[in-house]
């Protein structure tokens, strides 16, 4: 390996450390106008009247847009939301109107002049109340919405998706169990908190074409979303993404673009810029939804899991166009990384008058594993079994069966658990601290046809430009994909440059989400490189004759006869023969990848022999203490091991995992969106909503297992979201051993005298 597995310096590193890197908010647009959004101060209400007169007459205002102009519901999986509120508002902070003005200050002042009259409706703020027969309905017209056929809304209720999984005979499994444990677990809403808030710029030209520059993860998903909502053909919409200042799922799907686009269409010929304030960012896109999880798990005296009943009630917020799929993903993963023969799962996506739930790093897995891992640790305690032994006994191994009945192969989970146990000194006493462990699994939750594509355009000097639409959100996609291209083409990494997404230029990518880019776009890059090599060898054959060829260190060689070779750069534009004639042409490799053979889950049983492209497994250990006087919880050390299939870049991989662990640490110790009695977020700033600082971070160790993913690029599988999944339960399990009490609600609270 020349490039794969090496600590290649990120392609974007110098641009970023010099301050030259341009994010959307840094781009200059001539004559740019600025937008501000009026948001509802009512969490559930019928809009009686919107008066925009004073705002429109305000000096410097160019346009005011309200929902009535764009009433068509849109969304990724379930079309249940509009760009601006239409008829009703369903959460505190929902966009009601947008203003375009000369400056951001004028736009904000004018927005305050818009008067909205609401007829207040009774709100509902928790999923269990929202399921009651007499609960207020958020979406009376749920039955009229469109949704992808793998979702099961219940019109006339607040359930926008009911996922069912039935495997084996759960009652029989409980009958055969020697010990049954039932418990309820709680996860609050949390906020992604990228350092860059959402930013977008829209521009409508005179010919009815719309361009949106957006700090987003998924430019093609944005384009599709806008096309539906604005009733415009895809070909008239262009979405451009530069560097993204952190996403974590909050910039997936479509968010701010749905506000800036209609505003830009209202002032053709002028650029319109919208930058979320930090406060606005807390509710302006998605939040991680809350969860109430009820588990009943049966186990034999031998320690083997026999049966599990699982009810997941998701506090999915006002709109669930994206969240409906989180509920589904958690449902089909409801056995976690365990082999449980009998399962019964109901996962409910429940509308509440909270901000819209949506994707956040882990896509339901941190919430699900919070419940599962605490449950498993308790079972081990009750059995008098060591928690590591319990997990080693029950976890998925080669030939194991998942919740959906899929038989899994190439599972490195046992090795991950053993690595963590060894490195954290499991079973060895350490003065003043206790240890905890948690394990996990995750698959990319995506449509069965979610595709990636890549183009490799050769330059005259033999260097190459890689075009994909994978967004560089900090995860290092640009670098990993360049490494894959360089390895395949036997080029130095310096010879590969990578472009940022532009739906008018770069090829299709479903979304930069789900820890799927290295796997899916990586496979597309491999295929594009193979296609390029075929063209290179064809061009070379005009000079060297028809032979089997290879590409080594910038030379195209006849296999077995290295003296017969031509430099790569001499054939990337075609072949030039001694008589002056030309043959072939510029090399342009293309590759597309769709994971084939993914089969939908059975709607009644949730069973499928292959519902997802791959599974990634991992384990984490934590060392924790608590001050007996103050109750202050200290996490001293986090140790993680993940089976990544193949390490593409050890430095970027370690960095991504370290960051995920710390994000998980934040969710364990600090993070919770606190809502007031009117459904408003009370802690929408960094003084009141704490994320970890450099002072909060413990010692971190990361280890990687490499059991190759057979259909992954160079054996790699995705890992980006995973580190956040088992962190909170690992810490909670350790804390339980310190205090003797298991806390079942996040974030963990200190118990002691302040």
């Amino acid at each position, binding site marked *: 390996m020349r490039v794969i597995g090496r600590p290649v310096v990120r392609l974007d590193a110098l641009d970023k450390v010099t301050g030259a890197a341009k994010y959307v908010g840094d781009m200059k647009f001539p004559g740019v106008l600025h937008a501000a959004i009026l948001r509802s101060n009512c969490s559930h209400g019928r809009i009686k009247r919107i008066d925009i007169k004073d705002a429109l007459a305000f000096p410097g205002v160019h346009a005011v847009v309200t929902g009535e102009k764009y009433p068509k519901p849109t969304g990724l999986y379930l079309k249940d939301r509009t760009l601006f509120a239409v008829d009703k508002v369903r959460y505190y902070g929902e966009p009601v109107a947008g203003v375009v003005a000369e400056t951001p200050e004028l736009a904000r002042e004018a927005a305050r002049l818009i008067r909205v009259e609401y007829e207040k409706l009774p709100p509902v703020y928790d999923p269990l109340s929202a399921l009651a027969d007499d609960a207020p309905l958020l979406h009376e017209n749920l039955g009229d919405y469109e949704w992808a056929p793998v979702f099961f809304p219940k019109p006339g209720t607040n359930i926008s998706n009911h996922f069912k999984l039935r495997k084996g005979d759960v009652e029989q499994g409980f009958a055969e169990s020697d010990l049954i444990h039932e418990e309820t677990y709680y996860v609050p809403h949390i906020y992604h908190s990228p350092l860059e808030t959402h930013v977008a710029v829209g521009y409508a030209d005179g010919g009815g074409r719309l361009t949106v520059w957006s700090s987003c993860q998924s430019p093609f998903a944005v384009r599709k979303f806008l096309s539906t909502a604005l009733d415009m053909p895809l070909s008239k919409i262009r979405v451009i993404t530069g560097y993204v200042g952190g996403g974590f799922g909050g910039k997936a799907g479509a968010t701010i673009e749905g506000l800036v686009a209609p505003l830009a269409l209202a002032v053709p010929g002028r650029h319109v810029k919208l930058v979320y304030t930090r406060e606005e960012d807390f509710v302006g896109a998605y939040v991680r939804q809350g969860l109430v999880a009820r588990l009943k798990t049966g186990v034999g005296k031998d320690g083997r899991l026999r049966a599990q009943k699982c009810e997941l009630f998701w506090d999915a917020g006002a709109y669930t166009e994206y969240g409906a799929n989180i509920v589904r993903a958690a449902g089909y993963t409801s056995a976690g990384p365990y082999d449980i023969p009998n399962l019964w799962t109901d996962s409910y996506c429940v509308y509440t008058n909270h901000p819209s739930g949506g994707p956040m790093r882990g896509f339901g897995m941190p919430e699900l594993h919070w419940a599962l891992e605490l449950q498993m640790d308790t079972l081990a305690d009750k059995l008098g079994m060591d928690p590591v032994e319990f997990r080693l006994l029950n976890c998925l191994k080669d030939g194991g069966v998942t919740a959906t009945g899929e038989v899994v192969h190439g599972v490195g989970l046992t090795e991950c658990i053993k690595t963590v146990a060894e490195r954290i000194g499991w079973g060895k006493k350490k003065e003043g601290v206790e240890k905890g462990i948690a394990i996990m699994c995750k698959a990319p939750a995506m449509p069965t046809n979610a595709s990636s594509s890549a183009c490799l355009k050769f330059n005259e000097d033999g260097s190459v430009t890689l075009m994909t639409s994978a967004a560089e959100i900090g995860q290092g996609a640009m670098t990993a994909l360049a490494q894959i291209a360089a390895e395949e083409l036997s080029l130095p990494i310096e010879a590969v440059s990578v472009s940022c997404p532009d739906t008018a230029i770069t090829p299709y990518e479903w979304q930069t989400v789900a820890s799927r880019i290295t796997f899916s776009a990586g496979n597309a890059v491999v295929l594009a490189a193979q296609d390029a090599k075929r063209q290179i060898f064809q061009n070379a054959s005009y000079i060297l004759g028809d032979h089997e060829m290879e590409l080594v260190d910038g030379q195209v060689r006849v296999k077995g006869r290295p003296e017969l070779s031509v430099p790569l750069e001499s054939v990337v534009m075609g072949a030039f023969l001694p008589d002056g004639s030309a043959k072939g042409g510029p090399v342009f490799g293309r590759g597309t990848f769709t994971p084939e053979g993914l089969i939908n889950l059975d709607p009644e049983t949730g069973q499928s022999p292959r519902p997802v492209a791959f599974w990634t497994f991992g384990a984490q250990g934590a060392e924790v203490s608590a001050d007996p006087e103050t109750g202050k919880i200290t996490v001293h050390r986090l140790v993680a091991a993940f089976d990544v299939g193949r390490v593409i870049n050890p430095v970027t991989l370690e*960095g991504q995992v370290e960051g995920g662990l710390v994000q998980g640490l934040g969710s364990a110790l600090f993070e919770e969106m606190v809502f007031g009695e009117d459904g408003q977020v009370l802690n929408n700033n*960094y003084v009141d909503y704490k994320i970890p600082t450099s002072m909060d971070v413990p010692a971190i160790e990361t280890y990687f297992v490499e059991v190759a993913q057979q259909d992954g690029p160079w054996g790699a599988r995705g890992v980006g979201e995973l580190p956040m999944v088992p962190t909170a339960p690992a810490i909670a399990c350790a804390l339980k051993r310190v205090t003797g009490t298991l806390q079942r609600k996040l974030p963990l609270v200190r118990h002691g005298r302040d």
Partner: protein
Amino acid sequence: MEHVIHLTVNGTQVSGRVRSDRRLVDFLREDLELTGTKEGCGEGECGACTIIMNGMAVNSCLVLAVEADGSEILTVEGLARGGELDPLQEEFAERGAVQCGYCTPGMLMSAKALLSKHPSPTEEQVREAIAGNLCRCTGYKKIVEAILAAGGSGRA
């Protein structure tokens, strides 16, 4: 009311006309087009807009442009000198201390202010110096390592 201010930014004398309520971060980003300095919260909570003013790391969203009259300012764009990267920039790049990069300029400036005072800081000093700079990507480990390496080498 407008004021004329004169200051040194990255070694260059600059002047500008600013309103009383103009923030330094906006003056730098918009008037001088030095967009390396980022804004993350506008309330002095995240540190993304950190610059060095008269030798001190400050949040440029909490400083009015008029307050910077007569001052000497260093932003991320001024870290590299004569085409040579600052050791901090080299270490951040080499050691994977950069991910999305949005906190990076502010982080670099806090680190630069620290190393100017304490060329070989302890890990504790480094962690304290960047405690006001939030990062959501890296978990800080590689950032701390990069700052220690830049300091330990005695190059800064």
